């Protein structure tokens, strides 16, 4: 018994540096203690199956770290050694370039992949043909996403118009110019466009002109968007974990990753205000239906 305990202790001591080193090959940095960051991190850690040390902003990255998980734009824009793979999420207004991080980086996208998004929107609104996508030019990450939506839409029979705003102040004018030209609006997760004031303008436009408004979070559906179509924080965390494992394996990763599972919240009252009748099939397949 004594020998077994001794052998066990030796094995534990032998494995401890390896375990510690393994634990330090992935580290996490959170932009703040906001709930979306914490939830995504918790899901990622659970999917990895092991604790991940959380470092404060600005802390030195251990020499053993090969992957840095960053939550939020503030964490994503920190300077990390070029040897680490940076995987960042919940940073919708940011696209990390080589200028910020010389090593590989992967962004976990909040919004669904273009084809999946359009498919879900058509499931909610079968007659949807013309979709207007609103985004601000000052948000660096938006241009490529908008272009992908346009191209994917063209391939699938949608007319997607990319409505670039020089700044959020142009929103009312742009909406007025869209009257009669769009069957629905898609609001990407653009932090320079999504504010309480702008959302009120969009919501009223939607109700007054019978144009459904689709938003990138369930919370905005609760606030009056026709539906929220997005990846959940839990799903983004799982996607992040899969990317981290692939990075540790040395696999090549794309610059952007979308979660496979999409969460749909439908606001029936908002849909009624926008004169949209949602089929029972669409309601059944939604993850959440608000009265």
């Amino acid at each position, binding site marked *: 018994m004594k020998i077994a305990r001794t052998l066990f202790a030796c094995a534990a001591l032998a494995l401890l540096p390896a375990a510690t080193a393994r634990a330090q090959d992935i580290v996490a940095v959170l932009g703040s203690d906001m709930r979306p960051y914490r939830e995504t991190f918790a899901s990622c850690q659970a999917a990895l199956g092991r604790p991940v040390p959380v470092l404060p902003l600005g802390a030195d990255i251990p020499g053993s770290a090969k992957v840095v998980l960053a939550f939020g734009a503030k964490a994503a824009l920190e300077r990390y050694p070029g040897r680490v793979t940076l995987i960042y999420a919940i940073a919708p207004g940011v696209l990390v*370039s080589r200028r910020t991080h010389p090593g590989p980086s992967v962004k976990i996208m909040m919004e669904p992949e273009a084809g999946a998004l359009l498919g879900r929107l058509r499931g909610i609104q079968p007659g949807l043909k013309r979709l207007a996508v609103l985004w601000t030019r000052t948000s660096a990450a938006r241009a490529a996403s908008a272009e992908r939506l346009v191209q994917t839409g063209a391939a699938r029979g949608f007319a997607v118009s990319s409505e670039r705003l020089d700044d959020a102040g142009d929103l009312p004018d742009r909406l*007025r110019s869209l009257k009669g030209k769009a069957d629905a609006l898609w609001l990407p997760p653009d932090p320079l466009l999504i*504010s309480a004031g702008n959302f009120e303008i969009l919501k009223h436009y939607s109700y007054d002109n019978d144009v459904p408004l689709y938003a990138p979070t369930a919370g905005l559906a609760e606030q009056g968007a026709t539906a929220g179509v997005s990846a959940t924080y839990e799903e983004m965390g799982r996607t992040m974990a899969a990317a981290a494992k692939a990075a540790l394996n040395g696999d090549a990763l794309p610059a952007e990753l979308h979660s496979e599972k999409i969460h749909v919240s439908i606001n029936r009252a908002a849909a009624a205000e926008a004169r949209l009748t949602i089929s029972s099939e669409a309601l059944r397949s939604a993850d959440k239906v608000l009265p």
Partner: protein
Amino acid sequence: MIALVLAAPSGAARAAEDAFELFREEAKVVTATRRSQAIAEVPLAVDVITADEIKVSGASNIWDLLRFRAGMDVLDGRSLDGNRAVVSARGIPREFASNLLVLVDGRSVSSLNQGGVYWAQLPVQLQDIERIEIVRGPNAALYGTGAGVGVVNILTKKPGGQALLEADTRAGNLGSIQAFQAVEGPALGKISLRISHTFQQEKGFPRAPGSRVDDSLRKNVLNLRAGGALSERTDLELFAGGSWSSAGLADSSKSLRGDFDNQFAMLKCSHALAEDSAIEVTGSRSDFRSDTTAWSLARDSRQIQHDAEVLHRLAWADGRLNTTYGTSYRGVVLASPDLYGSARPRLELYRGYLQQGVKVTERLSLQGAVSLEGSNMAGVQPNYQAAAVLAPVPEQAFRTSYSVAHTLRDFIPVYGFLTPDANTVVLGDPALSVPYKIESYEAGYRGSWLERRLETDLSLFYTKIDNYHQLFFDSFVFPVTTLKLRNYDDAIARGAELQVKYRFSRGCWAYGNYTHERVSDRAGDRALMTENTPAHKVNLGGSAALPRGFSSSVNLGYKDAYFIGAVGGGSLALVPAYWRLDLRLAYAPPRFRGAECYVAGQNLLKSEHAEFGNGVLVARTYAAGVSFKFGGSE
């Protein structure tokens, strides 16, 4: 228990707060990263003229773009030394407005001969302008001497990565022809290039009674702008160009012609240290030569100017603090035997500056700036300014500022030795190398209403100028009269500027602005200080997209009467109050958006009127043109 229930936010309110909290948090980072600043948050009176507004204005000259703006004053028809227009701000026009700093892509284009800008000879083309930023009010702490009353920054278009071909040709009365061409696109891999050229010809305005003038112009302007990324973090840009012109000059006693060459080259390098920190290094050289067929302020004159600047901009403390600091050098040498004899006046100016902005709370921002300028003319002089912006509710902001600027005088007041004719001598005074002081107080308000369709801006200002120079009689020894410049006068300029703009839809808007200015001075000299700016100015106008591809714009302006020095000096001239109407009507075929034909008219209400003395009369002008644009991005 009841207090806790009352104090706690309702579930609905908390849910609403949560829905936007993430984006609010992310926006802070993006905003700090981009260092964008909404105009409402700027603690000064700022006006922006966009490229679209320039296009629909129908203007054929840069100074006409500034004519209908609040707080700005434009006089046309001067032409004494080739400088046809005088642009000034806030009631201090003078003939040579040396307190309004004019920049092109950040490079000063003011003349140190007598102050002011040779607008007609600027090496910049209307169609190349991306926007014009007008900052009314002192900004000397950030921009340096010469910005005591305001700054006009002309920013040109940056070449995009896509191939583009543009052309714009117009012809009108008074023998006017203007032809513009530009080509843009990628070159040698990573470089984007834009080359543009304008040819302009005019027979000039009609003569005022009793004057002999030849107010014609023949000009070529060529510009090159190239840029590219040296690395992921470093960008390099080259600006170069020139204006070569031959112009008739207005003089009541003789007919003059002048030749003007104005060339420059500038290199700008920016390096991003981090997403919220960047260094910029700029160096430039400009060479302005002028010569005239007889004595004038522009005869056999050459100004060579070198500028260099290094600055660092950064945002820190979660974007709550914005800092800009830097240092600059300016060296100017001027040669003109008719103005300075054998002397070659020079200026060597070294400047260090620091501007700090603090976002105290979401609603309150403070900004301060200080600079030290050392020069061979005036030793070391400080400039400083402090401002605050309070936004009690979204879309509404109140601002207040205080500033002190020490302005170096131009060369003629200090070094001048002019003999305009055999019986007159005008002398400068070396004692005028001491700068004069401008102290300014300002309060303002900016607000948006009706879902930002309606924008309003109000500014109130009080500006005190100490030890300003004027021309005085010094002595008479038969037959020669000697006049001398002395810093004899103090002046106070007060006023109010109100602007309102309503946007009906995209490309369809209406505006109105009102400016009241009053200048009083100790010397009581109405000719040069107190009454040479209109007390009241009103401008109205708008632009509309009409059916079937038509569009129109209109600008209507009223100016009160004012006095101004007559061409050639000497007596005053009263310019009566007048209205001015400019119109433009255009047609763009719906199937070919890159093409447009248009007709434009300026000063349509009267066949001619005087704006400056009695040299030339500003005539009614009209032109028709066609423009094309192939390629480029949206």
